[in-house]
């Protein structure tokens, strides 16, 4: 069972990601990237409270998005390790075992669920960054654009993980949702980054 990644020092977390093929992996990294994006949005909104009446409401939303993303960093690590273990068992086992195959399928389903939620949260973080860029103190707009870029990166990585998951077929509606979230986040990030150049 993976540790609570949020309780680790950043240095140790990075070392764990780099260490071997076990969790935390790309899904957890994507989730934490979205959490970073939400924290940046929160910072920009906090710094704009004097001129923006609803800034605290944005801080509250960013907090929720960041917390959900951070939870998913752990959840993804757990689901991924279980799926890897099931895959190893399947590879080592006999050619036909319905029970084992069903268990593998279930674990792959769970392994796809976390990235899908991460992609969704990435889209939400990007949308919140867009609102923040529009309404915040001008001095912090570059940070809002950077937040959108991070959110888009997290969403894109997560959508890719949904795409390559062995349990998800090309016509799976979950894949369509993940790709739609990626698109939303990318469009917002591109718009905010372009407007600042």
């Amino acid at each position, binding site marked *: 069972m993976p540790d609570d990644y949020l*309780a680790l020092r950043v240095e140790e977390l990075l070392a764990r990601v780099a260490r071997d093929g076990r969790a935390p992996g790309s899904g957890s990294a994507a989730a934490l990237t979205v959490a970073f994006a939400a924290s940046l949005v929160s910072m920009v909104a906090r710094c704009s409270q004097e001129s923006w009446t*609803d800034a605290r409401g944005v801080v*509250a*939303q960013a907090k929720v998005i960041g917390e959900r993303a951070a939870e998913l960093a752990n959840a993804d690590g757990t689901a991924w390790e279980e799926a890897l273990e099931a895959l190893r068992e399947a590879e080592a086992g006999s050619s036909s075992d319905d029970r084992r195959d069903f268990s593998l399928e279930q674990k792959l389903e769970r392994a796809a669920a976390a990235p899908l939620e991460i992609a969704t949260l990435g889209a939400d973080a990007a*949308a919140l960054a867009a609102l923040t860029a529009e309404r915040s103190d001008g001095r912090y707009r570059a940070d809002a654009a950077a937040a959108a870029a991070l959110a888009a990166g997290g969403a894109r990585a997560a959508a890719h993980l949904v795409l390559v998951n062995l349990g998800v077929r090309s016509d799976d509606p979950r894949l369509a949702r993940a790709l*739609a*979230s990626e698109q*939303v986040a990318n469009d917002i990030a591109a718009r905010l980054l372009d407007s600042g150049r």
Partner: protein
Amino acid sequence: MTRPEALSDAELVQRCRADDPAAWSELVERYSRYVYAIAVRGFRLSDEDAEDVFQDVFTRAFLRLETLRDDSAFRPWIAQLTRRRCIDFLATSARELPVEDPTTDEGSDDLGEVEEAFAVREALAGLSEACQEILDRFFAQDQSYRTISDELDIPTGTIASRIARCLSRLRDELEAKS
């Protein structure tokens, strides 16, 4: 008097609020398998762990029943509670840290949350239906902006600003009441 088994969820919730123990027993009976299934089938918890989550969910549901805004939405509400407790359970298990006295902290957290929930619920009642709806969906039901947009037929790009405005109004209500 109508037997509890024949009542709708909303009617049972209303009776629970009137301190009818038979109504609560019926709700537990009606949703025990459902909660257990989420823990075991949805989160792959062992029977023993699922039993712990089960007890915790129904305890919390009982304590927080006053925060359920739509009495007919007991099922999605308890499903949400169950999912959150399962995630907490997995996260706690993952930490592998010694817990010195979990019952003390948990108890005080619950009390604080109940008091807070009462205050927020009162303040929420002073907001428009639209505000109550959108806040409930984002904060209580964990819905994404896109889901809220689709279900309420509101442009996605306006969801975050609407929630922020509603929170400002909620804060005004809370400040006015305090």
